């Protein structure tokens, strides 16, 4: 394909167009009544204009669609050559005989190939084979081989260089066959194009329909002209043919306009993406690239996923994300230098527009790479937070176990010991007063140990927190520490790590001040928001609370003696 992108090739196209146009004009001017344009200069001009527009459109899209552009230039040239099939053509007569019916096939090929350089489908290949076979093969070469102008009453016609043997009967038969085939493939082409338009996603339809629809119109008009000429067995230049020729010129002009439209749309996308890069600047905020993409692609639901070094996919926040689309979403992976770098999750068909993706990569790759690195950073922070949460959870669970063990083991035994001492005291005789006093002391000491142990166990991990939740635990804590004043508290349960972080924050606040401590909490939007009111709280004393709250992905803020703790609690 690189040779098609050669710099000199467009200039060859331009030169060819100028030359062919000059020849056509000369031919038409010499004997207008024999041509399709006829005696009106306007008709000639319309034909020329159609060719120029097509060629211009082809040259403008040279980079985007090389094969398409070549086919389009070919169509423009063949369109002009279709005027050469007259006695005024001189040396151009023979090429005119061969190629006068070639342009619809070239146009069909260009339209089916499309701006996005699609590989033609099997039905398209068959159709194009019939189109070229009938247009250049049957009506062109085969007919020329058996056509002797002089023998068929055109004494002034130039020599047919291809003539092998004059066979008017065969020539007429070939004409009929060619016209019938032309009408047939024109209809088939219209059907194929219709199916393609209907089946395409909206984005692709917006892209391809402006070219495909006028091309179908032009080809159908050609098919209609074939039907019109079927009875006599050849294309001619009667008033109907001339009218059709004019309308065909208009349709060709519209094809050119369609190409220009598609070209403009691609430009607009590129401009929007370029603007995106300018707006984002060197350091986009997380999510900014996504927002701008959503705006410039016109899909507010667009999300971006990034691939980390280890092959994992994460979202912009660094959270692990599934690549498979959910519901009616579609995922387009974007590879740069053969590597998956990011993926766009979007509504189906949004990125079918073939230029969009490549524009996206070339224009926004820097911003996207920045965002990807940011996501990677967030991902490692998230891993760090998760590991911190695991450490805290492990510590909590060990403390709970210890609390259980103290209750079920040590405390029970100590109570039993106290009872045993009491029983021993009962069995003492009246003269064991001294021993009785010692045992009483021992019993009191054991009971004191039970009380002390109870406090230790409770301090390790309050059973009520695990069993009944935050509100109950804070109520219970307020019985133990009267300075604590629980106010509005949500009665529901939260993840245990969130509950214990909230409890710990309260406990730590009580430790930090001698004043009363009020606690308000509310659960909304999947977050537990807790306001701990205690005087002289400062950030520096909050480190432990910050650590604990941060481990569950929460935040703390101190303002006017109030500590606000927010934790996500629904994930």
């Amino acid at each position, binding site marked *: 394909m690189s040779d098609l992108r050669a710099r000199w090739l467009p200039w060859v196209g331009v030169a060819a167009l100028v030359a062919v146009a000059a020849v056509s004009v000369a031919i038409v001017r010499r004997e207008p009544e024999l041509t399709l344009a006829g005696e009106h200069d306007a008709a000639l001009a319309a034909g020329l204009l159609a060719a120029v527009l097509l060629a211009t459109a082809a040259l403008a899209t040279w980079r985007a669609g090389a094969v398409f552009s070549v086919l389009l230039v070919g169509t423009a040239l063949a369109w002009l050559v279709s005027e050469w099939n007259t006695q005024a053509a001189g040396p151009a007569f023979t090429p005119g005989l061969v190629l006068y019916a070639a342009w619809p096939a070239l146009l069909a090929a260009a339209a089916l190939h499309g701006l996005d350089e699609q590989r033609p489908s099997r039905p398209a290949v068959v159709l194009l084979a019939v189109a070229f076979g009938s247009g250049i093969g049957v009506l062109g070469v085969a007919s020329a081989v058996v056509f002797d102008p002089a023998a068929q009453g055109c004494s002034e016609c130039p020599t047919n260089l291809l003539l092998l043997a004059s066979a008017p009967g065969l020539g007429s038969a070939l004409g009929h066959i060619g016209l019938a085939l032309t009408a047939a493939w024109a209809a088939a082409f219209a059907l194929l194009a219709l199916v393609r338009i209907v089946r395409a996603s909206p984005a692709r339809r917006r892209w391809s329909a402006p070219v495909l629809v006028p091309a179908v119109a032009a080809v159908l008009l050609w098919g209609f002209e074939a039907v019109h000429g079927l009875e006599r067995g050849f294309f001619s230049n009667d008033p109907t043919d001339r009218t059709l020729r004019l309308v065909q010129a208009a349709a060709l002009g519209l094809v050119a306009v369609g190409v220009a439209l598609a070209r403009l749309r691609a430009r607009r996308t590129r401009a929007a993406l370029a603007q995106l890069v300018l707006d984002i600047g060197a350091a986009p905020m997380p999510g900014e690239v996504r927002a701008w993409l959503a705006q410039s692609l016109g899909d507010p639901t667009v999300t971006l996923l990034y691939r980390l070094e280890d092959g994992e996919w994460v979202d912009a926040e660094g959270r692990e994300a599934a690549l498979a689309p959910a519901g009616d979403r579609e995922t387009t992976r974007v590879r740069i230098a053969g590597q998956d770098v990011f993926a766009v999750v979007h509504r189906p068909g949004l990125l079918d527009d073939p230029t969009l993706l490549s524009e996206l990569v070339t224009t926004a790759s820097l911003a996207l790479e920045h965002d990807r690195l940011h996501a990677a950073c967030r991902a490692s922070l998230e891993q760090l937070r998760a590991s911190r949460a695991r450490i805290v959870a492990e510590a909590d669970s060990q403390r709970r176990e210890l609390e*259980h063990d103290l209750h*079920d083991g040590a405390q029970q*035994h100590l109570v039993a010991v106290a009872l045993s001492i009491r029983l021993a005291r009962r069995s003492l005789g009246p003269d064991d007063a001294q021993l009785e006093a010692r045992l009483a002391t021992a019993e009191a000491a054991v009971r004191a140990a039970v009380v002390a142990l*109870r406090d230790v166990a409770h301090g390790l991990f309050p059973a009520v927190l695990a069993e009944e939740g935050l509100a109950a635990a804070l109520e219970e804590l307020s019985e133990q520490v009267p300075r604590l004043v629980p106010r509005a508290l949500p009665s529901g349960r939260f993840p245990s790590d969130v509950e214990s972080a909230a409890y710990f924050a309260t406990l730590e606040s009580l430790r930090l001040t001698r004043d009363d401590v009020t606690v308000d909490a509310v659960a909304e939007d999947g977050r537990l928001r807790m306001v701990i009111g205690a005087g002289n709280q400062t950030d520096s004393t909050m480190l432990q609370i910050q650590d604990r709250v941060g481990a569950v992905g929460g935040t703390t803020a101190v303002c006017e003696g109030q500590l606000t703790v927010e934790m996500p609690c629904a994930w």
Partner: protein
Amino acid sequence: MRLVIADDEALLREGLARVLEDSGFEIVGLCGDAEALLPMVEARRPDVAIVDIRMPPGHGDDGLVAAQEIRRRHPEVGVLVLSHYLDSRYAARLLEEVPAGAGYLLKDRVSEVAVVADALRRIADGDCVIDPTIVSRLVARKRARGPLDVLTKRERDVLALVAEGRSNGAIGEQLFLSRKTVDSYVSQIFAKLDLHESPEQNRRVLAVLTFLRSG
């Protein structure tokens, strides 16, 4: 008075049985897990069942759950729950369905035989008894707003002593008030807490329940 004792710690169970037998109680059954307790109560029909809060099979609040079940099915059987927990909510749970004849004592009280014996007698009489440590913690805490806001400081002091299971006479002695004054405080409390519809015995327990739940 006939007693059933349920505690998974054998030493404690046997010790408590002996101490209480010495104090004139009749022990009609001993068991070591919560599941065996209910059939035993149904078979032996004690006056009061002494239940450890933390027992097999779950080692959580199985004992309390069993105690609640006893109260639901056999309201005539009093229940004394022994616990390591100072949480007043457990005590409230015990009282909330059948507001009579139940007690919640901390486990370290068991060697104070007089306290336990007194509690058992009150429970058998249909009173309720809450451990003084828990009551004093409830009194000390600062409430933002609660149902006890309608009571004066003095009335709250009286209510706290009612919660500990004291009789009006004993409350009068403690607060240096005449029996009559205490009577009037108590009826004032019932009135303020909207409890005048129930019989006297239940009113005392309902007032205690309100006290326990004042959070």
